[in-house]
């Protein structure tokens, strides 16, 4: 008998965890602070050095990490429903591939980070439109058709990425690789990501009961009165936008969008009214912790945060997969 925790318990667990993760991110780094000192800074006091460290360096980055983690987890949950496939992630339809080609192109040219981000965003949305129009073809699109189209387009982007890496000048290779593995050191302006995250979640929540039905298949959902085509389109566009914003700021950070929705389904059930807010919090927590590790493990060197999420995500996912096989 699967044990499901209630909405209240879920948030009673996740909210303090989110606070603790943020506090940890603000306290650790080249100069370690204790929680009291961090809280003093947040309250408006504290030494000048501490204020600079916390408010100008660590806070924007931690906030960016949280928003990106939330966006990726949310996009992953949506993609899994859209494709009716628990193994889908935000990147499965080639959004990150398109973004990577744009971003790497800019990095090759030595462009400023604003242009790298803009090119990533443009590439992501371009890839979304490409996959959508190709999958639509003649007649409607089914999850399988969309998935196949997306995977093939993603493979195409993959080849282009390899080509760019092969042609790239030595000087920019390192930053290109970091971008590909996910890197939050550009993430200094969390405003846009937070805006999209909050508005996106607020817009999706009223539809979460519809998502519950959609997860059982197009026909079943339509038989129960859900306007499936409009909903599918909305989910697809929302998930693509979330992913585009996330990769624009952090590169293609893996595993958050795949693993977090699974963790939440196994603990809180698949009801999207719990799942959607839950994955936002859990995704944010995971990425804040992963980024804190990435900054501090080999300090002063920074690791790409995508490597850390993979280190956490791979064993976790294998464990979950193993567990689910025994129950099916």
């Amino acid at each position, binding site marked *: 008998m699967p044990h499901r925790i209630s909405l209240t318990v879920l948030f009673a667990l996740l909210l303090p965890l989110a606070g603790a993760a943020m506090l940890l991110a603000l306290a650790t780094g080249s100069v370690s602070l204790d929680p009291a000192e961090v809280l003093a800074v947040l309250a408006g006091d504290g030494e000048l050095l501490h204020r600079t460290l916390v408010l100008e360096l660590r806070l924007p980055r931690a906030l960016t990490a949280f928003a990106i983690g939330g966006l990726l987890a949310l996009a992953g949950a949506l993609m899994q429903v859209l494709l009716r496939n628990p193994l889908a992630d935000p990147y499965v339809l080639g959004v990150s591939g398109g973004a990577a080609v744009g971003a790497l192109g800019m990095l090759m040219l030595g462009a400023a980070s604003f242009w790298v981000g803009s090119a990533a965003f443009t590439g992501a949305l371009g890839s979304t439109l490409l996959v959508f129009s190709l999958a639509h073809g003649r007649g409607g699109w089914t999850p399988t058709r969309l998935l196949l189209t997306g995977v093939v387009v993603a493979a195409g982007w993959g080849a282009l990425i390899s080509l760019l890496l092969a042609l790239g000048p030595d000087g920019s290779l390192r930053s290109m690789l970091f971008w590909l593995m996910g890197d939050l050191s550009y993430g200094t302006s969390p405003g846009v990501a937070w805006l999209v995250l909050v508005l996106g979640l607020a817009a999706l929540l*009223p539809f979460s009961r519809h998502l*519950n039905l959609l*997860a*059982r*298949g197009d026909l*079943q959902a*339509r038989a129960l*009165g859900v306007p499936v085509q409009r909903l599918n389109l909305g989910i697809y566009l929302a998930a693509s936008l979330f992913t585009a914003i996330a990769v624009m700021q952090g590169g293609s950070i893996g595993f958050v969008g795949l693993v977090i929705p699974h963790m939440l389904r196994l603990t809180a059930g*698949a009801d999207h009214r719990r799942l959607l807010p839950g994955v936002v919090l859990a995704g944010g927590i995971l990425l804040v912790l992963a980024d804190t590790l990435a900054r501090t493990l080999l300090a002063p060197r920074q690791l790409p945060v995508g490597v850390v999420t993979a280190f956490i995500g791979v064993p976790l996912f294998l464990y979950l997969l193993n567990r689910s096989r025994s129950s099916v």
Partner: protein
Amino acid sequence: MSALALRNLTVRIAGKSVCENLDLDLAPGRVIGVLGGNGVGKTTLLHTLAGLRDAEGGRMALFGEAFESLGRRGVAQRLALLMQDQDDPFPATVLETCLIGRHPHIGFWQWESPDDLRIARDALRTTGMASLEHRDVHELSGGERRRLAIATVLAQDARIILLDEPVDQLDIFHQMKLLAHFARLAVEESRLVLMSLHDVNMAARFCDEVILMFGDGELLHGETYKVLTTANLERLYRIPVRMIVTEDALFFQPG
């Protein structure tokens, strides 16, 4: 007033004719069986009646209201469809699954009310699933999953109930119990039950009317005792059929 009225309905699938210019009036309070071989379009017909696919032509009305004017949600409040199979890619409990049947009756901003929960639990009890309400759907047997799908349809509480091979995966106890329940829903609550069946004897026992689908677009509709003849069944299934008459029932057997 007829529960389901079809005018000039033409349905084709992959170039094959399912029905041509069909006029049909199905009254509430009746149980109607749809019989025919594999691939004659029973499922296609049921899906068309539920609005899941468009007809080539013709009009449909539910209780006198034009189908198009009802909207998807309006249709789902009046008409429930049991599909041939279910897909559960994600974990969910039995109760959660049954509750999705309440979706058309729950307002956009609302959560399931205690009433919805009561209706879903009643449906689970009717189908003998009450003791399993906390189980994950992935842990159910094929027959249990089927009974859960039937419970979901019952929870939808629609006046028109379309069932696509409802009892083929069930043991004989649950076949009898659930078909009797649907017959009772028709008689006592004047609902229309339209179901495709492969078991001619179950159709003879539980259906007031039958529709035979011959696969070339021709349909034969009428009172069960008039339409279920050896001649019609031999034509329908292309095998010799023997009829056995007892004092209170008709039986058919491949001859």
